[in-house]
């Protein structure tokens, strides 16, 4: 199980949970970001994710390093899909483990917020009548 995994294959939340399971980690938080069937009232057919993979992996590593130090994590992993992702499938999984739950919750929220700010991955939403790059315009 890779800590950082950018893939066109389906993500596996059970495997991610197992990857951050340790006898001395009492708090495990697994965030799963799934593709919704609707955005701003419009029906979504599917999404397509594009990644600048080399840099995305580097930026994910920075997030993991920062969070691991700040919240004294046992481990954090980040997996992200690329290519076409259907409604109901997972686009991203962030799993982390700490001694206690508070640190794990905070670290996981930090990681997904930061990922959305810094990691060079782009999402395109496909509708019945067109397609749009998400957040491209103000």
């Amino acid at each position, binding site marked *: 199980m890779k800590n950082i995994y950018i893939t066109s294959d389906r993500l596996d939340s059970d495997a991610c949970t197992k990857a951050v399971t340790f006898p001395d980690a009492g708090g495990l938080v697994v965030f799963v970001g799934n593709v919704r069937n609707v955005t701003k009232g419009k029906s979504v057919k599917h999404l397509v994710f594009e990644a*600048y993979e080399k840099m995305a992996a580097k930026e994910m590593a920075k997030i993991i390093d920062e969070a691991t130090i700040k919240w004294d994590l046992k481990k954090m992993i980040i997996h992200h899909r690329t290519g076409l992702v259907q409604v109901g499938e997972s*686009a991203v999984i962030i799993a982390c483990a700490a001694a206690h739950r508070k640190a794990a919750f905070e670290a996981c929220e930090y990681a997904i917020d930061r990922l959305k700010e810094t990691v060079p991955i*782009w999402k395109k939403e496909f509708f019945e009548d067109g397609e749009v*790059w998400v957040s*491209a*315009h103000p």
Partner: protein
Amino acid sequence: MKIEIIAYGIAKDIIDGPSLSMDVVEAVDVGTVRKILLSAYPALKGLASLQLAVNAEYVKDDFVLKENDEVVIIPPVSGG
């Protein structure tokens, strides 16, 4: 010198391809490259942000480019 610029996401649509090459003076900085891009492709001005990465790291506008640097246009990211 000649530099190759790679684009992703909406930037790829705006420059109408995955990359472009640009003739620039030696030791050009990233801010100058950004200005050239914005003037050649005005639609880039409409984006919520436009960052440039060099060799897979975000850089500031005073970053000086060398030949064979990997320069990438980073439009607003939207992962997750």
